[in-house]
């Protein structure tokens, strides 16, 4: 194969690679399924998420505060970790999640995304911190999982968030809350 043909193939490949625009992560794809039995806390919980970002069509898929919060709400509701979910200002416990960093690759066949979040569970009545943890999660979307690179990146981002939420639920399940 001569250089010209190789260049054409390479350009065609890159065009296909970049085909499509970035789409935001979907809450339903970030909902975590518990890996083991979950302890049910009798109290109510309110959730607040900060540090997320909106997705622009020209950039990479990001996670908005609202989408992460929705995924977390659904995950906790499905797991039964807390008796009820309500507004943070009305709940027995307030869960604050800060998305510290989202590390995404520029390009690649397998896309590996890292997410780091800070979690703080506070008893609202006396503002006592019941649990605090920085959690870093990694997820790789393999080349065969989606054809377009932007889709694989979104899947890897959603997977990292899902793993992160799963880890947090497991840790909160082990708590004894007064």
């Amino acid at each position, binding site marked *: 194969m001569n250089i010209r043909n190789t260049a054409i193939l390479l350009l065609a490949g890159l065009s296909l690679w970049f085909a499509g625009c970035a789409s935001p992560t979907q809450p339903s794809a970030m909902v975590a399924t518990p890996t083991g039995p979950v302890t049910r806390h009798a109290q109510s919980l309110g959730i607040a998420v900060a540090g997320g970002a909106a997705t622009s069509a020209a950039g990479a898929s990001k996670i908005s505060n609202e989408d992460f919060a929705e995924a977390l709400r659904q995950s906790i509701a499905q797991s039964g970790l807390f008796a009820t979910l309500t507004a943070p200002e009305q709940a027995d416990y307030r869960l604050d999640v*800060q998305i*510290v960093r989202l590390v995404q690759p520029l390009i690649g066949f397998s896309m590996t995304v890292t997410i780091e979040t*800070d979690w703080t569970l506070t008893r609202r009545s006396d503002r006592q911190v019941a649990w*605090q943890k920085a959690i870093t999660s990694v997820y790789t979307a393999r080349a065969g999982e989606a054809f377009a690179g932007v889709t694989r990146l979104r899947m890897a981002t959603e997977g990292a968030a899902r793993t992160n939420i799963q880890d947090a639920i497991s840790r909160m399940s082990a708590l004894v809350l007064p």
Partner: protein
Amino acid sequence: MVNPGTNLGAVKSFYVVHLPRDGRNVNQLICDDLVRRGLKATTGETGSVPPDADAVVTYQDKWVWDITMYMLQLDLQIRAPKTDFALASGQVMHTSIIRRSPPEMVKEVLDQIFQKASAARGAAPMGGK
């Protein structure tokens, strides 16, 4: 991002953790910039955080090639030493046509963080060239 309740003006001693895969000594650039701001800063490996460090600085640098290698993106976090929680974080990105030197990238991200902290609390060290 500056965490609510964080007073970076009260942080006087920083320890910059060298990223193991960083062969360009970006940690030293961060350390030098903090010192230029009148702060006490040292740098080293992850297991050597001095007991008197008020904050730990971590970073992730992303480099790409366009005629020459250049720093595309720099993420930086200032953390509480005991909990590893991020007190503040920042990110700068410049593509090839508006590329900046690594010291300029470091200065920009630290300016960004301290400006946000200053706006939030009304006290933060600024300056440095």
